[in-house]
């Protein structure tokens, strides 16, 4: 493996990217107070907010221009996903964007792609291969009639008359069981191409979810730091004690690494998709870890208050694991990261 390659290591955002971050950051901060998140529980879907996300271009930006989109890159999309994660917005944007892109790439019907771009039809993706007709839990399938799934036969679009029944879960996401036999199905692609399309979509889902988890970690950290600055014990702010300060320093460290790895993975996926295909998986592993740590540390720093449902940290704590677990065991991703190294050394 070439460890001393002369590549740039430049993580700065250009003006357009900065505008995406700030635009969606302002949007989510203003539109999604924590009360809205609570009101959307346990389903985890706010239809009004979804309309406003659509109006912001959230559902169309990631599609190619010929499919009615703006051709935004994965770098743009991870910036949006991080901002979404910062407020844990109850909208199925990550799954929908990824599934819409897959649909467009796989030659899905123009009307459906257009309806997805306009957010009228919500689309999602079964993250595990379908084997033997077994059902699986699919993110956002409780609000989506259209589910893309891959099996040995190929990539299939499954369309139901109604979204499947919601399965209540810790992360308050619109999770549902997906039954490959239910509804109508249309084969979109077959063979190695179908598998490649599927693998790429799963990697995109993990990358955008990683970005959302970075957002969760960032907000959790902020809540913890604010508390540590203002809460006093024995005559000093608790944040002056290393027993409190060091875990928070560890959190910002893990979080910064996660954020930058997400950006780096997004750059590669955009510009050199075949060079480092394992990077989105590495980013997912790290972001899941960072979000788990950040939310636990922040809740713990806030003492008993951090353990109450009234405290906003509860929203982030429950979703850090509740969102990341939808991607399955990070161990699978670690194995692929290792396999990539073994192939390279």
């Amino acid at each position, binding site marked *: 493996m070439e460890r001393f390659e002369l590549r740039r290591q430049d993580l700065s955002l250009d003006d357009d990217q900065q505008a995406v971050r700030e635009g969606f950051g302002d949007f989510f901060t203003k539109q999604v107070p924590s009360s809205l998140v609570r009101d959307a529980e346990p389903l985890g879907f706010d239809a009004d907010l979804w309309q406003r996300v659509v109006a912001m271009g959230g559902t169309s930006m990631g599609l190619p221009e010929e499919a009615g989109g703006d051709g935004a890159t994965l770098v743009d999309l991870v910036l949006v996903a991080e901002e979404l994660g910062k407020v844990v917005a109850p909208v199925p944007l990550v799954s929908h964007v990824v599934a819409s892109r897959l649909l467009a790439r796989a030659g899905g019907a123009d009307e459906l792609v257009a309806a997805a771009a306009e957010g009228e039809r919500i689309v999602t993706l079964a993250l595990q291969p379908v084997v033997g007709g077994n059902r699986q839990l699919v993110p956002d399938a409780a609000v989506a009639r259209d589910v893309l799934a891959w099996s040995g036969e190929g990539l299939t679009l499954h369309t139901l008359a109604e979204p499947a029944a919601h399965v209540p879960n810790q992360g308050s996401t619109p999770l549902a069981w997906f039954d490959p036999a239910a509804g109508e199905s249309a084969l979109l692609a077959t063979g190695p191409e179908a598998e490649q399309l599927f693998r790429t979509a799963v990697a995109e889902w993990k990358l955008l979810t990683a970005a959302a988890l970075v957002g969760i970690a960032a907000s959790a950290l902020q809540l913890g730091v604010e508390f540590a600055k203002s809460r006093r014990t024995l005559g000093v702010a608790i944040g002056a004690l290393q027993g409190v300060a060091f875990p928070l320093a560890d959190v910002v460290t893990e979080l910064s690494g996660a954020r930058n790895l997400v950006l780096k993975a997004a750059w590669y996926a955009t510009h050199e998709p075949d060079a480092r295909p394992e990077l989105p998986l590495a980013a997912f592993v790290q972001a899941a870890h960072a979000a788990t740590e950040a939310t636990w540390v922040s809740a713990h720093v806030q003492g*008993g208050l951090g353990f109450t449902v009234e405290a906003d940290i509860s929203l982030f704590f429950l979703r850090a694991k509740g969102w990341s677990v939808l991607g399955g065991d990070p161990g699978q991703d670690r194995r692929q990261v290792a396999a990539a190294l073994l192939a390279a050394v």
Partner: protein
Amino acid sequence: MDFSTVELTPEQQAFQQEVRAFLDEIVTEEVHEHERRTGDGFNEAVHLALGSKGWLFPAWPVEDGGAGLDRVCQRILALELLRARVPGITASTTGLVWAAVELSADPELAAQLKPEVAAGRVRFCLGYSDPEGGSDIAGATLRAVRDGDEWVLNGSKLWTTGAHNCQYTFLITRTDPEAPKHKGLTMFLVPLDSPGVEIQAIRTYGGERTNAVYYTDVHVSDRHRMGEVNAGWATLQGPLSAEHGAGRPDDGLSDIGILMGTREFEDAIDAAARWARRTTRPDGTLVADDPVFLDRLGALVVETEVSRVTPGLMGRVKSSLSYIDGIAELIDLVGPEALLAHGADGAIEGGVIDYAHRFAQGTATYGGTTEVFKNMIAQHVLGLPRLSLPGSKQFVR
């Protein structure tokens, strides 16, 4: 050294059978459902039933309302209560406070309360933490001002778990704001039906209910003072050191360390193990045969084994922190089904892993944060010096 199964006498065997049969009867599915719904850590019918057998204070003589049990039978009872998942938080706070009542209360008051407490009709909760005070109990700001034969209380407390199911709270108050921090405190046993007491529910994402309790011009008779005026810190020490596990007999009939949530963690691990034995992966292999699953599950099992033998306060810290880390890893191993809620289609064993993950987080805070205990371990086990802070000795508002 001895880890052998305790040989039971015929009487002890009969007692074990009696306990099991009794608990089978009173701890119904409705009891568990009530606990899931309320998070009270208390069920009045069960509590009174235990009181009727003398099992709330099983070591007390029968004539005092106890059951006169020997150490082995006490251990039998304790294990069966755990096995039957009897909600026991209010029983436990009542027991803690009783130690102080016996030592420090007006003897007439104590004598009057004793049979009621034993029967389960009178229950105590802990009025320790200030809203702004965190683990620094000695920094209490709730004011008590003498007014003839009475005291007038003003202020509030957080984390008074069970207040809505108790008759009295064991309350720490500041009676002399000018004195050094630990010398201006006085304890009271405050009747919770006193005018001016307001109890407000606080819910945790662990599913428990605790309370904020507000005291506005609450008048309490001097008879309810516990111990001397401004000697509240000494009054409080008894139950607090019992809570921290000091002074247990060393006959192998107690746990080795203070366990926080190890049962909940083990429940989740056991459920995951059973899940692994019945679940196949897409490629048709059994999860239980997956070496990666075994490697990582084994790490969690080792943590529970270690928690169970780590002594005293160190066990308190170890059990809590290894549970918090470990339950997150267990969820990764199982995947999304692990976080389905109780009653959801596909939830594993009634959502036991989901519950264990939420419940875990509180174990690092109850009765003092893990940081407080690490400070104590550093100072008392290792002999490291204590850092002197402005409010270590002085009352700082």
